[in-house]
Structure formats: structure tokens, C-alpha cells
């Protein structure tokens, strides 16, 4: 369904991503991990359409993926994902309103009633029924992310992109959110890409784990080489050594530069 053919991303001289070659089937749940600044979010943005590959092709169903956001690809950001001027219920109903063609994006009459029913049902699924008349400002961080997830799932996109959606949440709430996302993913059967900086999250959530890292590095010119996918593993079949290997790779102890050390000793 999604295919990347030799995808590169550069900003001027800075290479962020290089030689990305992957393909993803419908219904997979891919978790993207890697050190900060390694380009995993950039890859997600290319899937979303707010960034485009500098080289290579990113295909969806064999066609170039659209270079602006649309209904095929849903998104939940770490923050700012919900509309602050709408109540919880209105936020979810907006999904239905935006799905229809029209000038204003407001719903009237029968369609409004239907949207309300669907939105209420969705709120029940994510456990926000009690707060439906509150404004996002009055919600906790976890509830706001639930709301953002409800909006995204109700739009029934083919791909759902999660950009560190739980990064700002407490560990306990994070577990609840994992359960929620897994339940919804099973119920709605969509393809999910989730960026996280929590490696453990990547190991039990979803079906497939990608690790982004640099294959080669020039310590004098950090922007010369970009990151690529160094591990592409099916989740559930990963043993402890691999985990350790990946963990070490992402949190390396700095190796002193031999040339530099010699100079210092001299």
C-alpha cells in the first residue's frame, strides 16, 4: 500500500534521510523510533504531505503520495491537535462537517443530527462522554489526546499518523492510551504509523518496528550523511539481545576521537 523507493530528504547541504526503501501492507501498525533529530518525524511529515522527498519516490497504491494533507491520511500531533474554540462534542462533529463538501463547514438539520449521533458514539468509545460540553482548555492532557484520536478515527482515514502522541503524558495515562489506540486500530482496521521516542512503546505496540539511525557518520560534518532505517523488525519476535543492541545504538556512549586524543597527549 505504501512504498518508499530510494527516498532522500535534504535541507540544503543537510542530509536528514537517505536511501529509505520500505513497503508497508494495509493494516500494519508501524512504530518509528530513533534518537531525536534522526528524521523519523520528517518521514511522517512526508507521509502526511507537509514535506516532500528531495529524491526518490513515496508511493501510495502505486501513485505519488499527495503533497498536501487530505482525508486519506489522519494525524494526531503531540499538541495543538484539537480546536480550542469548540466543545468536545463540536470538535468531534467537526470531523463529520469537514468530510462533506461545502463552503462553510457547518452542518444543519438532518445531517447535523446524524453527525451528533455518530460523534456521541465515538465519545463513548474513547471515554469522553462526561466531558462533551467542556472546552479543550478544561481537559487534562490525556483527555485532549483522546479527543484528538476520536476526531482522527471518526474520519476513517486509510492511514493514521501519530506524531509522538503520548510524549507529554504521564506513564500511567500513557498505558490507557495504548490500550485505546490498539482497540480502535483493531476495530477500524487502518494502517497506523506512530513516531515515538520511547523504545519500549515500539516493542509491544503494533506489528512492526522501524529504527531510524545513521549508517555512517562524519563527526566533523554531522549533516553530511542522513539517517535511514537500520532495523525493520516484526514486533513480537524480538529477543532481548536485539533490544539491547537497538537501545545501545540509540543511546551510544561517546567514543573519543583517537586523532584528537593523540594531539592532546602530545
Amino acid at each position: 500500500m505504501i512504498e518508499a523507493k530510494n527516498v532522500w530528504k535534504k535541507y540544503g547541504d543537510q542530509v536528514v534521510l537517505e536511501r529509505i526503501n520500505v513497503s508497508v501492507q494495509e493494516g500494519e501498525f508501524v512504530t518509528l523510533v530513533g534518537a531525536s533529530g534522526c528524521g523519523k518525524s520528517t518521514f511522517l511529515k512526508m507521509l502526511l504531505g507537509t514535506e516532500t522527498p528531495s529524491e526518490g519516490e513515496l508511493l501510495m497504491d502505486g501513485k505519488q503520495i499527495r503533497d498536501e494533507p487530505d482525508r486519506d491520511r489522519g494525524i494526531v500531533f503531540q499538541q495543538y491537535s484539537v480546536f480550542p474554540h469548540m466543545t468536545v462534542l463540536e470538535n468531534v462533529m467537526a470531523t463529520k462537517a469537514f468530510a462533506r463538501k461545502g463552503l462553510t463547514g457547518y452542518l444543519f438539520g438532518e445531517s447535523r443530527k446524524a453527525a451528533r449521533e455518530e460523534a456521541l458514539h465515538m465519545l463513548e468509545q474513547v471515554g469522553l462522554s462526561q466531558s462533551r460540553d467542556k472546552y479543550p482548555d478544561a481537559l487534562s492532557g490525556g483527555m485532549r489526546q483522546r479527543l484528538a484520536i476520536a476526531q482522527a478515527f471518526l474520519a476513517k482515514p486509510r492511514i493514521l499518523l501519530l506524531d509522538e502522541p503520548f510524549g507529554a503524558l504521564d506513564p500511567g495515562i500513557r498505558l490507557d492510551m495504548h490500550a485505546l489506540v490498539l482497540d480502535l486500530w483493531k476495530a477500524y482496521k487502518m494502517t497506523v504509523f506512530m513516531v515515538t521516542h520511547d523504545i519500549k512503546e515500539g516493542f509491544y505496540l503494533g506489528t512492526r518496528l522501524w529504527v531510524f539511525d545513521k549508517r555512517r557518520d562524519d563527526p566533523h560534518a554531522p549533516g553530511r550523511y542522513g539517517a535511514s532505517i537500520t532495523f525493520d523488525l516484526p514486533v513480537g519476535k524480538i529477543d532481548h539481545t536485539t533490544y539491547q543492541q537497538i537501545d545501545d545504538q540509540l543511546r551510544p556512549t561517546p567514543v573519543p576521537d583517537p586523532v584528537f586524543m593523540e594531539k592532546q597527549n602530545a
Partner: protein
Amino acid sequence: MKRILNLQAKRPLAALLGLLPIVLLIVVYSVASDMRLKANPSDKLLPSFTQMSDSMQRMALQPNQRTGEYLFWVDTAASLKRLAYGVLIAAALGLFIGVLTGSIPLLGTTFSPLLTIISLIPPLAILPILFIVIGLGELSKVALIVLGITPFIARDIQRRTHEIPSEQLVKAQTLGANTSQVIIRVILPQLMPKLIDAVRLSLGAGWLFLIASEAIASTEGLGYRIFLVRRYMSMDVIIPYVIWITLLAFLIDWLLAKFNQKLFPWHKSGDQR
């Protein structure tokens, strides 16, 4: 003893402290006025409070002998009407220009330089042009207010539009929204409280342009009256008029602030999510 930097007044004392300079100012004025009037009973510079209230009674409660109008209220109505028209038109225009140039990048790059140039023109400098082109009637006074504050409102709204997190715009698009839907349902509602804030900030300038244009060409209005009675050095009219204008300005500002709180409960200034 704490450092002065850390000293704070408690509730009743704070209110008292706030009132102190105002009371002091009134006392100083009345003492000075008394002294001057004692030396010269026909002194005009610092009228006593009785003189002022007499003048105001004449202006506000008795019909003018020549026209039969209650001048104070005629002036107030005329000025408020001009101000209201000017500010409303400026707000509508400013919102329109600001939202479009702020949310549609192509329009932004096309019109932002022009908008910057226009906002730098001193409005009073083009008042003669207005008088020449559209005459001395009501329209030119309203036009001056509109020209004076529209660029400010438009630029403020443009900046506020840019402040809306792009995540929200992307999110709306992933839910299927088109350009007009994003503008009407995501951007515009979030700008309404900002528009009222911008209007509150521009009201001071609005009053300035109103009084300036009334002073130059008018037959009634608060600014007109002040400049008219200046010829007779009628401080007993000018001072109450200035106090009245200040009070009106305060009331309008207060009402708009209340309006904002009531209408947009989700809006907390300086805090966005």
C-alpha cells in the same frame, strides 16, 4: 523589613493606595482654583466645581435658547455615531483584510508590503485629501477614523492568524476540510476575541481622529464643542467635556472586555492550546 521590591499592599489598603493620587489631584485642583478665584472672581483658567456643574446643567438639562436642542446630548450622540460607524467599518475591513492576507499565503505576499506602507501614512496628514475628495460632511469624519485604524487592525489580525498553530490547519485538512471551511470554522472563530482586543486597542486612536476631524469641520460633536468654546476660554465647559469623553472611552473599553468574556468563554488571553 523586606526589600521594597518585595513589598505588596493587601486588599483594602491597595484600593486606598490607588485612590490616593486621584483624591490628591482633586484636592490640589480645588485649592488652586479657590486661590485664583479669590484673587480674581472672573478668572477663567481654573473654574470651581460649582461653575462647572452650572455650565453642565445649562448644556445638558436646558434647551439651547437659539436652537432648542440639549447641546450636550446632541454632541454626545453625534460623536458616538461617528465613532461607532468608523470603528465598525474599520473592524470589518480589518478583519477581512487580515484574515485573507494571514491565511492565504499568496494574498499575504501580494498585499503585505502595500499594507505596511499604508499603515505608515500619518492619517491626519491625509485629512485635507479626504476633505477635498469627499467634502466636509459626515462621511469624511468617518473615513478618517476608518483610514486611521483599519491598517492597525488588519495587521494585528494578520499576525494573530499566523499565531494559530499550523497543526490545527493541517488537522482540519486531514479531516477533509477545504480552504473556505478551514477559514470559516477554524480561523475566523478564533480571531473574533482577538478582533475585539484589537478594537479596544485602537479606540484611543479612534477618539483622536474623531476629535481632530470634528475640530476642523463640524457643526456638532464633543470635539467640535471643545474647540468652539476655546475661543471664549470656557474651561468650565472644556474640563467636564474632557472628563465625559474619558468616561465614555472607559465605558466602551469595559463593555468590550465584558463582551469578550461572555461571548468567548474558551478564550484565555496569552494561552493557547
